[in-house]
């Protein structure tokens, strides 16, 4: 089997359309995040989260209305893998034992013939949530800085660094936007929590992997084809590595899809972010990173007037 043997696509020419596509996705993601707000999980917001396991199926809306009054506020509810398991998130203040018992007794009252037990609890204090948030932001900024510096050292051109970092920001922002938009629609947990930050950093690593392979080819080709125009050389490098880019994306997409389907409820959101991230990462290393490198290099090499 051979895909993309000696392809001669003109990626740089296609960049005009891709600028529009990326631009629209990027801007609408930012608008979505600004208008709908980031949907923080308890890791970064603080609060209490429980997973209840019922013997028989339950109705989320019934539970929501039954618990709103006792908890002094509407709890967030989602199904957790099946119709008989629910995830409940509440901001109700007070001792976790007290709240847990309050919810349990109300649930038993609501469904007297449907025994329930708690299979997972998470409590994050507001102060601790703040700490986690700072650590998460730091880790992402730090990762971006490391990427920038490493590429600067290895490829000796700030526009390579800028291109790689732009692609990363592009990927992460769009994943954030998609998470924000789909939250009310999907039936699994897509809040922004620590696992999602881990997914982000993995996407950063993956997208970078792709980008670096292309840059490496550019470096190599620039030694062989010294007279070739920078733009054409980048295009050639993208085509040279296209087969590899696609194959690696396919195998990685295989495993993250497997993780999304079989990885269990706890990892659903994390795996989903990886699925989107792998697709975006492949796309951005083909179109975004290189286009920006070409653009920046062109400007940098123009004599100042």
């Amino acid at each position, binding site marked *: 089997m051979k895909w993309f043997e000696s392809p001669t696509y003109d990626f740089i020419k296609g960049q005009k359309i891709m600028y529009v596509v990326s631009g629209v996705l990027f801007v609408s993601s930012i608008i979505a995040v600004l208008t709908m707000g980031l949907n923080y999980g308890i890791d970064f917001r603080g609060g209490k989260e429980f997973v209840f*396991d019922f013997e028989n199926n339950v109705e989320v809306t019934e539970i929501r209305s039954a618990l709103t009054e006792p908890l002094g506020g509407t709890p967030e509810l989602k199904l957790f893998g099946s119709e008989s398991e629910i995830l409940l998130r509440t901001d109700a203040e007070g001792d976790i034992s007290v709240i847990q018992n309050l919810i349990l007794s109300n649930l038993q009252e609501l469904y007297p013939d449907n025994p329930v037990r708690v299979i997972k609890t998470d409590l994050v204090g507001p102060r601790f949530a703040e700490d986690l948030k700072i650590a998460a932001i730091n880790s992402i900024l730090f990762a971006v800085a490391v990427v920038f510096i490493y590429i600067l050292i290895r490829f000796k051109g700030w526009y390579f660094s800028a291109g790689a970092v732009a692609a990363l920001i592009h990927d992460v922002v769009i994943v954030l936007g998609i998470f924000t938009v789909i939250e009310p629609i999907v039936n699994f947990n897509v809040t922004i929590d620590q696992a999602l930050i881990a997914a982000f950093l993995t996407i950063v690593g993956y997208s970078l992997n792709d980008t*670096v392979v292309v840059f490496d080819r550019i470096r190599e080709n620039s030694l062989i084809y010294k007279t070739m125009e920078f733009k054409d050389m980048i295009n050639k490098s993208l085509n040279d590595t296209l087969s590899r880019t696609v194959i690696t994306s396919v195998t*990685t997409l295989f495993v993250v899809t497997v993780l999304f389907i079989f990885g269990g409820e706890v990892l659903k959101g994390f795996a989903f972010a990886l699925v989107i991230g792998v697709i975006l990462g492949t796309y951005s290393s083909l179109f975004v990173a290189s286009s920006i490198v070409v653009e920046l290099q062109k400007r940098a090499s123009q004599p100042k007037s």
Partner: protein
Amino acid sequence: MKKQNNGFKIGTIVVFLAMTIMYLFPTIQWNLEQRHINGMPEAEQAQYSEENRERLQSLQENSLSLGLDLQGGMYVTLEVGVNQLVLELAGEFADETLRDIISVAQGRSVDQGTEFITEFLAEFESRDPNAMLSRYYRSDVDNITRRSTNEEVETYLRGQVGSAVDRAMEIVRSRVDRYGVTEPSILKQGNSRLVVELPGVDDEERVRDLLRGTARLEFRLTPNAEDMNSAKRQIVNYFENAGSEEADSLATGDSLATQQTGGNPLLQIFSPQGRSEYVFGYAAGPDTARVNDLISREEVQNLLPRSAELMWGAQPFATDQGLELFELIPVRTQVEMTGDVISEASVEFDPNTNEAQVAMAMDSDGSRRWARITGANIGRPVAIVLDGYVYSYPNVITKINNGRSSITGLSGLQEAEDLVNILLSGALPAPLDIIEERTVGASLGEESIQAGFYSVLFGLVAVAIFMIAYYHAGGGIADLALILNVIFILGILAAFNATLTLPGIAGIVLTIGMAVDANVLIFDRIREELRAGKTLRAAIDNGYSNAMSAIVDANVTTFFVGVILFSFGVGPIKGFAITLMAGIASSLFSAIVITRVVVDYLTREKTSTISFG
């Protein structure tokens, strides 16, 4: 030359494989033992475990441990209440100004995520640059006197905080050990936090109480019954005049309020009589919070004798129409003795009622004081107060010389056992707050293990089939490397004593997808070289060497990301970072070294061929 080179490579592979098997051996053995034990009849299980305890224990310790999210258990982060400690250290010198400074400093340190002591000093000095901290803090041991400088006091306070955290850790450890958890882990995090991991624990409520239980035990006298009765009359009168509009808003639900009418908001939910003249009155369980609201008003507090305060009984004394009734008991504000004097504690059963109670013995100093207190109060009750609730208020019958006392009125054997545990491990130097808690039930853990196992399996199969379809023999070789890679990752985890978590398994699955990248790079290069008309041997040589720089760059950057995740992430995320890093290291080895050896072996004859698709 090349032969020799491959000999070295084969040697390395053999050594790594041997080490991996060595490190994974206890894990395999442990799992076989578990299966063996579970297959036995129940009676034999205990006996077998007992006979082989040492061997089993060492197997378990050396085997790859599963995270709490996989085996079920509880993960708790506790924060030592440094602000509380700083206030308590001031003792009787504490005044409104100090309280205010502490609360401002606490607020700021929470908002800005800074250290409390630093904020405390800054706030103290900003109010009056010339003020001396020694106004509030004295210590003979640390030589802190009226003339100590602020710097000296700061050192003293920091020292006290440090030792309080250490002591809290010791106490938590001792409580956890007494509770009986296999392989608990208690670690200090930062300046004032403790991270407690308790595998297999499923009674969250009990553990929460155990961890933060201060078990502040106090012996107090009760105030003069006459004075209290007159105070009670005045309080009832006060609410008589307080107006009836309040009453309506208070009467809700199935409490005593619905049974009594009348305009007095207190009497609606509170009955001002008791089983003895020493009891202030009683209320139903659901009403106690509202009674607290009413009697905590300043005007009401002013009606009470200065030396007295009101506390609820710990256990209901009776039930009325399904509602548990609790007594409100007046005690003196002055604490005669605290739990410090307790030298022994044990669970006992009341010979008459067979109820569990805690018997305590006091040290010599405590015994002397106990004798003096009981001797001076014959015929009057002494209240035994635990964490702000009155457990019992027995009448003193005779002077007690041997320092014996007991806590009765407990809810059952479990409470008695936990109380003994807490009393014996000592009082916490400062309150502990649960700021993070994550509990996973054993059933969810099992589901996660299964989900993880299937993800690894299906991921592996999908990638393996694809690689063979696309790269033919070359793909097969890459698959061999891939399988070895997964085993290596587990070996690395076992060797570093790391824990396998669910995100960790996700890391392995992800590695399966990304590990073939190195082989994809190499094989694509080989195809390119072949297309350029090179011989197979030359194509292989060039393919490997030309792909190297891309492989190194791509993996180094991903490894950096793993390092960052590891240093910033907490708990399970760290597990993801570890497997990601282990995966990168081992995939480089298997994708570059192992496949090369196999490819070289298959092409050892000039005439032999190998297909790269």
